[in-house]
């Protein structure tokens, strides 16, 4: 029998984020629904990947979308269950505007016995003009294949 999901409140989780990469990046909670979660990555000097232009590096955007889609899976599954990112593909549609925080929205649109399928976007103010698009999968750990 599959384990039961552990109740998970993303707002409380990100308000008390333990030391780690997410907290180092300054990622915070914004909103969530039954199969999605939206997080915010602040613009910070130490996240810059292109010093000449002040553009944030692409790595933190992947990290943001990894976290947002991961929580999206927990929303879809009704709570926390252990999983691991299997793969992520991120398309960089345009550079993020220097000085603006980046909003990352991750949605879980399909769950099978072993795998969750996710998609999402990152934008810096206008969801209709995203800076990045993500598609990926998570595999469930701790359950037989």
């Amino acid at each position, binding site marked *: 029998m599959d384990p039961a999901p552990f109740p998970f409140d993303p707002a409380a989780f990100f308000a008390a984020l333990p030391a780690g990469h997410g907290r180092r990046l300054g990622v915070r909670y914004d909103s969530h629904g039954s199969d999605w979660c939206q997080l915010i990555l602040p613009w910070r000097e130490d996240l810059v*990947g292109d010093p000449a232009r002040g553009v944030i590096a692409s790595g933190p955007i992947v990290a943001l979308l990894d976290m947002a889609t991961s929580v999206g899976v927990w929303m879809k599954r009704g709570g926390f269950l252990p999983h691991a990112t299997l793969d992520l593909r991120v398309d960089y549609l345009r550079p993020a505007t220097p000085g603006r925080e980046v909003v990352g929205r991750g949605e879980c649109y399909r769950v099978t016995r072993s795998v969750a399928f996710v998609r999402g976007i990152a934008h810096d103010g206008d969801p209709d003009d995203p800076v990045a698009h993500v598609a990926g999968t998570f595999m469930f750990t701790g359950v037989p294949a």
Partner: protein
Amino acid sequence: MTLPPYADLLGITPEPGDGAPVLAMPFGADVIGRPGFVHGGALAGLLEMAAIVALKHALETEGRSDTRIKPINVTVDFMRGGREKVTRAQGHVSRLGTRIANVETIAWQDDRDRPVAAARLNFLLATD
């Protein structure tokens, strides 16, 4: 080689050697995901940085150091959990064109033949 502020955040340092630079990222509080493991986002950041320095190295070798590189996309495969130890990554430019470069990167810990993650990246090259 100068690395951007984000590389410093990850604690990345280049290691001496020939060819595309090997980048080392120590384990520490700044890169932890779930307890005892490297965050997937930090691994992705390391892989991307290794791809960028490999591409810059290849462009320098061809006398094209003034080329600007813009990431188009990245696909990351996570193969094993990254444990509490240093992670290394090295990129390989599989094709260097006039407008597009294709770069493959792997990240490993103890054994290069047992990668913890790998990525493929496409870059746009601009000379304006």
